[in-house]
């Protein structure tokens, strides 16, 4: 199950970060922060390759004993990081990809809101609902 979902801006500060209860919120924040290094590594490794849908999804960033971290980067260098519980082995790669795609769609809807300034923290009910559905559904 997705225990933590984060949206990181181009300048590597968080726009949105939410984790499921909640004892160790700081631990998740730390995990997401350290995963950013792996994301940057993957982005620079891609280099001049043509960016299409496949390469937006970065895949498993790193596994630990408790959880796995997946990453996804948009063309505008906004990163989505998802932390998933390791014990849930039923989660397929496809499902992770489709979750990221849904996140990306919700993010695009927020960007289209004329009152949202890019770079602000995200305070949108629709986005919250999307994230909630991912955190519960995969439970």
């Amino acid at each position: 199950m997705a225990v933590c979902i984060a949206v990181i801006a181009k300048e590597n500060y968080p726009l949105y970060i939410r984790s499921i209860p909640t004892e160790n919120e700081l631990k998740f924040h730390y995990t997401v922060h350290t995963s950013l290094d792996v994301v940057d590594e993957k982005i620079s490794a891609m280099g001049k390759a043509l960016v299409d849908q496949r390469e937006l999804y970065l895949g498993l960033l790193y596994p630990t004993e408790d959880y796995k971290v997946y990453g996804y980067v948009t063309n505008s260098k906004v990163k989505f990081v998802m932390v998933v519980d390791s014990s849930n082995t039923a989660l397929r790669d496809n499902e992770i990809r489709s979750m990221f795609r849904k996140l990306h769609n919700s993010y695009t809807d927020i960007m289209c809101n004329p009152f949202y300034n890019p770079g602000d923290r995200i305070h949108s009910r629709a986005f919250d609902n999307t994230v909630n559905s991912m955190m519960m559904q995969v439970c």
Partner: protein
Amino acid sequence: MSRQAGRKQDNHKISRELFVLTYGALVAQLCKDYEKDEDVNICLDRMGYSIGIRLIDDFLARSAVKKCRSYSETTDMIAQVAFKMYLGVTASVSCSSAAGNEFSLILDKNPLVDFVEELPAERASLCYCNLLCGVIRGALEMVHLAAEVTFLQDKLKGDAVTEIGITFLRKAEDRKHKR
């Protein structure tokens, strides 16, 4: 120079997203320029008015409707033909006064607010689509019908539907300007 079907330029449409985003950018910029919601509303209304006085000729040429005999016919025309032509949605009309000069248009779907979830907290009394009111007012004025057009209900402010109220300012019997 009426626009008949023969002109090829008529079939060029622009993307709806571009239009909605442009309108949104316009409102956001006005919000930055003016502090008070009332000023933004007035500005939008004025802009809509200047669009309306020009749009009416385009509408009459394209739709070739015959002269409306009553206020309710006029309102029906706006709701069914004009809204459909320019916004792609139709509105339903209800008459809300015994004198027959107050009507309201009820919009189920408003394409202008596609991407706006809700108004920002500091702009609670902003009428986001006030441009539409100005357009209707301007267009009616060019066909010699003075009217007041305001928003009665607004989905962005939490109401169930979006409702635009049109109040015609002269009694039906006084329309003696027909030659």
